[in-house]
């Protein structure tokens, strides 16, 4: 592992403006180095070097172009994280097409709706999503589906391997450079978080994505081996983790399934990890669980207090027990970059005492996504770091507003929402915050009505309320995130329901609750775990409302 740099000049990386330049650059600069690795179910490690990766991208791109893919076409990727996901994405964006990154944690019907709304006519699918998306082919909404990894047994889907093969033979006879693309060509369409089809489609240009990567490289240094289990369909996983690792020439280990994330983390032996607070807490909980089982929790707590005191007094924190604990729980990990949701300061400090630097960052899909991040050489715990160099950040009545080259082009096919979100190039994030005298940004809350979970997912309560309102017994409902657990930002989804008095006549409170719980359970069945309503409260009175009869969210 490289030593931790404290001088910005030590880690300059090249700047690129477009994906074709980026691909040509990483192939030339890092060619034989390992670029991408993953583990099979049998724990075998598979690896592609930078040269192999960029060649596979070139072959796929050539095959697609040969079969008639036209510049500007929208191509959707519906799959779990995989090497083919990354290769398909890079092939699409490096020939002037638009990659539509579909959120695969949504219900089947929402996934189909996302594909249709994005006007994608070509789909890259993993076997899991083939049966979900084939109806789109049958109905004529999409023209072609390409299956990644595995045999479909369905002749309507083409195998990605046949495209690789075709492209390879064409390239062998007549190699061609990547197509030139314009800086303002849309590269990615990424969906904002939401619970239903109302999620917005954010258009990010070639330049916006590249600028965001290159700007972040001025602040954050990755070591040699980077681990990422963040979903690639979010800008955080794709741009900050995958593309940033390639920009720096590091070795990326990917994980495509939360079920094997911890296993792969230990197998990969990374020194750097990009993640969300949820995973940091899971690692921390597991570590403390093991310590408690060994009957050493009290002595460790005492040692942590001593170590914290040493840190406060600027004395070196060198304790063999802590080093052994870190090695057992975190292996070779020395740097965690955490974003997507608020990370508690206590956790950052605890990891710091174990010898793991925790850099908290802040981003939003509409900004490609990084807005600010702490630096390896200047890290203020509790803050979300310094705004990127090319971004202007202003606080308007406490709301963080951002302008600069990595801000989105707008929402696809939604000029009204675009006009509301962008004013003279300024994007209103909906987050409230302040900056300190050194320019570090601190977040204090949200202006927009979104519930943010520790896994970085966001839920719009209105959309869940819409689902719950369809229950006949529900007259009024409000969904909120209520405190749950040790930290202030631990939330669980709670539905407060005012039942329809007419429909409840003659029923006891218990019977009403039982009936409502059964209905809520039915709704939960179609929702991913994090979106499920965990608690149902019954109200005896109607909600307080505004003059326009909207429920007052903060007065009930």
């Amino acid at each position, binding site marked *: 592992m490289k030593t931790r740099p404290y001088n910005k000049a030590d880690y300059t990386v090249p700047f690129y403006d477009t994906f074709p330049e980026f691909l040509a650059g990483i192939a030339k600069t890092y060619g034989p180095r390992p670029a991408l690795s993953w583990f099979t*179910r049998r724990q075998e490690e598979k690896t592609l070097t930078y040269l192999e990766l960029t060649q596979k991208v070139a072959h796929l791109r050539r095959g697609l172009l040969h079969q008639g893919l036209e510049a500007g076409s929208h191509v959707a990727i519906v799959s*779990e994280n995989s090497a083919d996901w990354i290769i398909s994405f890079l092939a699409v964006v490096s020939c002037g097409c638009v990659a539509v990154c579909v959120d695969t944690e949504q219900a089947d019907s929402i996934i189909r709706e996302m594909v249709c709304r994005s006007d994608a006519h070509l789909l890259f699918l993993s076997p*899991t999503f083939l049966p979900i998306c084939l109806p789109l082919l049958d109905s004529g909404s999409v023209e072609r589906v390409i299956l990644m990894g595995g045999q479909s047994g369905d002749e309507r889907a083409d195998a990605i391997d046949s495209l690789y093969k075709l492209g390879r033979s064409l390239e062998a006879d007549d190699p061609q450079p990547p197509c030139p693309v314009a800086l303002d060509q849309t590269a990615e369409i990424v969906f904002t978080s939401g619970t239903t089809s109302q999620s917005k489609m954010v258009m990010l240009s070639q330049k916006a994505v590249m600028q965001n990567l290159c700007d972040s490289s001025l602040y954050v240094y990755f070591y040699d081996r980077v681990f990422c289990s963040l979903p690639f369909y979010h800008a955080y996983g794709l741009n900050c983790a995958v593309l940033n690792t390639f920009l720096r020439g590091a070795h990326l280990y990917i994980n495509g*399934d*939360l*079920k*094997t*994330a*911890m*296993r792969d983390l230990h197998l990969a032996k990374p020194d750097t990890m990009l993640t969300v607070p*949820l*995973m940091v807490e*899971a690692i921390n*909980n*597991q570590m403390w*669980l093991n310590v*408690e089982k060994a009957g050493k929790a009290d002595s460790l707590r005492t040692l942590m207090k001593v170590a914290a005191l040493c840190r406060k007094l600027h004395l070196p924190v060198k304790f063999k027990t802590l080093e052994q604990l870190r090695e057992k729980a975190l292996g070779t990990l020395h740097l965690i970059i955490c974003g997507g949701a608020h990370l508690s300061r206590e956790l950052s400090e605890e990891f710091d005492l174990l010898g793991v630097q925790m850099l908290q960052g802040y981003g939003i899909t509409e900004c490609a996504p990084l807005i600010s991040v702490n630096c390896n050489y200047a890290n203020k715990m509790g803050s979300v770091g310094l705004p990127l160099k090319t971004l202007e950040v202003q606080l308007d009545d406490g709301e963080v507003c951002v302008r600069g080259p990595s801000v989105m082009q707008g929402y696809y096919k939604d000029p009204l929402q675009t006009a509301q979100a962008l004013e003279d190039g300024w994007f209103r994030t909906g987050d409230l915050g302040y900056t300190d005298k050194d320019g570090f940004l601190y977040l204090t809350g949200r202006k927009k009505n979104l519930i943010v*979970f*520790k*896994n970085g997912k966001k839920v719009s309560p209105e959309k869940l309320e819409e689902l719950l309102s369809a229950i006949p017994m529900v007259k009024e409902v409000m969904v909120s995130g209520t405190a*749950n*657990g040790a930290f202030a930002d631990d939330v*669980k989804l709670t539905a407060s329901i005012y039942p329809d008095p007419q429909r409840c006549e003659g029923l006891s409170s218990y019977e009403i609750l039982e009936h409502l719980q059964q209905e809520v*359970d039915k709704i*939960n*069945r*179609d*929702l*991913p*775990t*994090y979106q*499920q309503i*965990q*608690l149902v409260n019954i109200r005896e009175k109607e909600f307080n409302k505004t003059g326009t009869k909207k429920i007052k969210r903060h007065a009930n």
Partner: protein
Amino acid sequence: MLQLIQDIVYNVTGKQGITYETDFVQDLALNSFDVMNIISAFEDHFDTTIPTREVWHLHQVKDVIDYLAHKGFTQP
């Protein structure tokens, strides 16, 4: 089978007092990552694969037992 589930849940999360009706999210306040880790432990134990999208439907302990029985696993 219940004993096996109790052991796995305790090993992964430290939570105890599991019954057939226990709901992983509502009663144990587990997050999606905890649930996935529990399912992963089942996969290892039974040498099987439980697709992630099917995990959404496993709310209670009895759902897991039914699911495993459906796949032919009735003994721990």
